């Protein structure tokens, strides 16, 4: 276990370095002189030169990158240009809202995937199987923001059943629509993937053995086949984490959910580059960490996966 974690930690470090290299390159693509931008519109040439020196912009690129690395590793993501507070503080403030939304979305996806994936696999080519296939194809083709707006219009505006976006108490009323918008389409998508995976598992010898020794079909499905069939789904879902967080950015914007995604959107509207870059870096870090969590989850479910 120890060497496995060490290996994953080393890999995490590589991913982080790569991610930071990419964000650093993006920032250095900004047209215009950053020193002029920071010194203000009426600064004299001397002040601009001083600012350039304080920001380290007169140093070689590689030194600048090292400086940037040091700052980020100490949790310093820079100062937000539009909000007058450190980017990291703003991100931490928004983190709970995004975490709640993301956790609810994942919970919805999980329940839908397991319930409908199993049902579809038990009655192959039945009505549930066909419905899942259709909803999965439709779900990933529909733009999330469009589904969100339509739900807002019908459920919140026309029927006045739920609030028109925002964040308040009771929380579930505000959480319901955004979570459903992102969770339901992808839930069916994963149900479809789980069904395909179950289909393969159900034809394996150990399943036949379990059936042969007289176990009931439901027990074989849930206790024998499902744990193995879930593994590839977890792998795919872990790869889709970027997609999930991207979807959450959109959903937060549509429903005015005060999370990190909305922060990034506001950052773009006010051309607040440090804020946008900070968000990108922060989410990339989260995705890398969650990937390791997914790896560990697979190890827990399947003891055969080596920890060496």
């Amino acid at each position, binding site marked *: 276990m120890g060497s496995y974690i060490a290996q994953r930690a080393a890999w995490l470090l*590589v*991913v982080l370095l*790569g*991610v930071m290299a*990419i*964000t650093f390159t*993006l*920032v250095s*693509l*900004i*047209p215009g002189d950053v020193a002029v931008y920071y010194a203000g519109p009426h600064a004299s040439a001397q002040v601009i030169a001083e600012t350039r020196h304080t920001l380290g912009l007169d140093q070689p690129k590689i030194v600048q990158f090292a400086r940037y690395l040091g700052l980020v590793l100490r949790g310093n993501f820079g100062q937000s240009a539009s909000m007058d507070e450190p980017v990291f503080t703003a991100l931490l403030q928004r983190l709970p809202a995004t975490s709640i939304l993301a956790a609810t979305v994942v919970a919805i996806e999980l329940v839908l995937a397991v319930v409908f994936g199993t049902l579809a696999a038990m009655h192959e080519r039945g009505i549930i199987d066909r419905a899942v296939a259709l909803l999965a*194809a*439709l779900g*990933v*083709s*529909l*733009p*999330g*923001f*469009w589904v969100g*707006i*339509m739900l*807002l*219009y019908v459920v919140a*505006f026309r029927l006045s059943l739920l609030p028109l976006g925002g964040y308040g108490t009771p929380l579930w009323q505000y959480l319901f629509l955004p979570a459903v918008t992102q969770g339901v389409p992808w839930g069916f*998508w994963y149900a479809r*993937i789980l069904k*395909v*995976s179950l289909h393969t598992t159900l034809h394996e010898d150990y399943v036949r053995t379990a059936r042969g020794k007289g176990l009931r079909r439901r027990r074989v499905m849930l206790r024998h086949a499902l744990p193995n069939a879930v593994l*590839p789904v977890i*792998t*795919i879902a872990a*790869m*889709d*984490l*970027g*997609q999930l*967080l*991207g979807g959450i*950015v*959109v959903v937060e*914007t*549509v429903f005015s959910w005060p999370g990190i*995604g909305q922060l*990034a*959107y506001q*950052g*773009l*509207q006010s*051309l*607040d*580059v440090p804020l*946008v*870059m900070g*968000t*990108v870096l922060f*989410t*990339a870090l989260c*995705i*890398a960490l969650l990937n390791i969590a997914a790896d560990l989850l697979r190890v827990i479910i399947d003891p055969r996966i080596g920890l060496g």
Partner: protein
Amino acid sequence: MQDHQANKIPSASAGKVRGREEESTAQVPRGRGTWAALCRERVALVCLALIMLLVLGALLAPWLAPHDPNFQFDAGLSDSGTPVGSNARFLLGSDTEGRDVLSRLLYGSRISLTVGVLATALMASLGVVLGAVAGYFGRWVEALITRLIDIMLAFPVVLLGLATAAILGPGVGTTILVIAATQWMYMARVVYSQVQSLKEWEFVGAARAVGCGHIRILSRHIAPHLLPVVIAYSALGVGTSILLEATLSFLNAGVPQPTASWGSLIANGLTDYRLDPALVLYPGILLAVVVLAFNLLGDGLIRAMERR
């Protein structure tokens, strides 16, 4: 589309040709068998026809559209300044600026389809070159490229798009670049695994033996066998790209206003969806149909390749 790489990679080494015409000659799969198999994919063919129809509509937009898409008609707004519903002059009604919705949809499809196709072409070229190089040369080249793929997969696409738009300024070119830069990994992974198995075939060794260089083997001997895979995943890629363009445009990080694209039409409608939900409904349905058509076409092509 992400799951296709995981569970639908057609194995080139299987090499079973079931097509009638070339049972004895071909050991390695050829393109023709795929087309024969595709003719049995009815859904995919219907989707192909639908896509052709839409492309035709986009090409003929200047002749089909009843009005200038960006002209703000006085008659397009009611006395209280709200959009008018569908009538004889504006078949699908007008938007909040008094512009003709039908004309904007037609012209919008030009932008959306162009972005989708160009972004996919760029994405596919990047993916094929990097994937093929990684699979063919192996060793440190392979390690480098597969690590890069993993790092890029940790990036939330939508946020990276926001960041790039904040830095380079939004525009059609930026949108295409962002989509290609964040989607090539999926193509690269498929091509990578294909080339890995293709390079073990005898014809590659034979080409080496008669003195072909690596570039020649890759471009003249291996590339032709990649064509079906690349076409199938490109179809999926166009769907994904169109959806991404719409999402980025919706977040004001894609195609800038007042240019019409399906995403920017929905974004426009968001502010006033309570006045007239049709402004969001029409472009959303069009978008969903097109993306679904490309996705189903891609799925059909992949199935056709597997059955061959």
